């Protein structure tokens, strides 16, 4: 990381996120700043709003205020979504296509963000230990293999920021280790990771943000001003 200039290096800044559903306030005034090489873990009980927070940061939640920006080395600000990979609960892979076709498709359609280049589908599958299943239809893979191929998508196109939602769901111990290595490697390259998870991911230096869950915004709709 050569960004030792007078300015701050590559970073993400988010401020003022509040999301509510009906009269339930899921979280309010979520703000964070992470610089290159830093990681953050969202923790909290099921339904506490971790996944919603990730989606809000990417602008995928309809009603949320606040802004999340990616600021590059040259101080240009972009919406976070352009510079980020998002690994959701669902794997974003077509069951009818082979793993190779799926990864190839995402490589072409996502393209590389400036700064680095992504791996080929073969290399990416190798990195998650699944070179052997590349030509099988995605539907034929086991849940853990699907998750690992979904993770390989993060490697085929370069993005400095990874937003991961339960990345290790359905994975065995060895695969968790592999993913931990890949995540550490990403941070070492100057990447940024935000993960929502219950399990330890092997990110030692990660900051932790605790989500406490939804609260009733107003007990009485006629008392809205009190809030």
């Amino acid at each position, binding site marked *: 990381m050569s960004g030792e200039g007078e300015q701050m290096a590559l970073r993400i800044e988010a401020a003022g996120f509040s999301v509510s559903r009906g009269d339930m306030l899921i979280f309010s005034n979520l703000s964070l700043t992470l610089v290159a090489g830093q990681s953050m873990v969202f923790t909290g009980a099921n339904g506490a709003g971790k996944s*919603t927070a990730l*989606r809000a940061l*990417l*602008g*995928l*939640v*309809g009603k949320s205020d606040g802004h999340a920006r990616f600021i590059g080395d040259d101080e240009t600000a972009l919406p976070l*979504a*352009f510079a*980020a990979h*998002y690994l*959701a*609960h*669902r*794997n*974003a*892979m*077509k*069951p*009818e*296509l082979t793993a190779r*076709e799926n990864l190839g*498709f*995402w490589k*072409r*359609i*996502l393209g590389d963000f400036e700064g680095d280049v992504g791996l080929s589908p073969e290399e990416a599958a190798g990195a998650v230990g699944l070179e052997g299943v590349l030509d099988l239809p995605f539907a034929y893979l086991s849940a853990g293999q699907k998750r690992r191929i979904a993770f390989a998508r993060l490697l085929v196109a370069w993005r400095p920021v990874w937003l991961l939602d339960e990345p290790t769901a359905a994975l065995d111990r060895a695969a968790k280790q592999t993913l931990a290595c890949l995540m550490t490697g990403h941070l070492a390259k100057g990447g940024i990771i935000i993960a929502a998870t219950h399990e330890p991911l092997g990110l030692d230096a990660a900051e932790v943000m605790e989500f406490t869950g939804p609260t009733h915004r107003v007990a009485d709709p006629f008392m809205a001003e009190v809030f």
Partner: protein
Amino acid sequence: MGALYRRDVILALRAGGGALVGLLFFLCVVATVPFGVGPDLALLARIGPAIVWIAVLLSTLIGLDRLFRAEWDDGSLDLLKMRDEPLVLIVLVKCLAHWTAYVLPLVVLSPVMGLLMNVGPASLGAAFITLLAGSPAITFIGAAGAAIAVSLPRGGLLVPILILPLAIPVLIFGVGASYAATSEIEAFLPPFLILVALTLFFAVVGPLAASLALRQGDD
């Protein structure tokens, strides 16, 4: 964008893609009409182009809810929304791919289906040309309906019901132009040009409405 188009066409044609279902439905509708109407060749020839048009419209409608459904189900839609290109463009490409895989085969097959109805060569040609010009409009309108229904668990039948009223003008001018082609008193060009205008109009409005609905319809 080329990659998206290619993938969508491949997905539609692979096993379970459903492009064949529309084609079979089209065949069923047209093939049953002569049994219902009876062996009156003159009558069949007269209603033939209209039946072919209606059959294409219905076959297109039943495949439309697949336009965004799979993308929604597996979470790909979120990733497509995160792209820096406008969502309208992505929707437009998906519409074109959907039309190529689901509707174009119907249009190509329509002259053969017309033969089943004893339609003459001139009318066959006219029906083919009007379908080629008008059927994209149905897909573009359908995109808006499919986008609205995408997050509903069983919104399959909702899509045809939502968009059928909007597709009626396309049907009217499509059938009107096919009849005018063989008529001596009516001119072919005015209804045909209105049909082309409808397609161009919906090519803009449909994807725009669909992308708005996709952005709003989240969670």
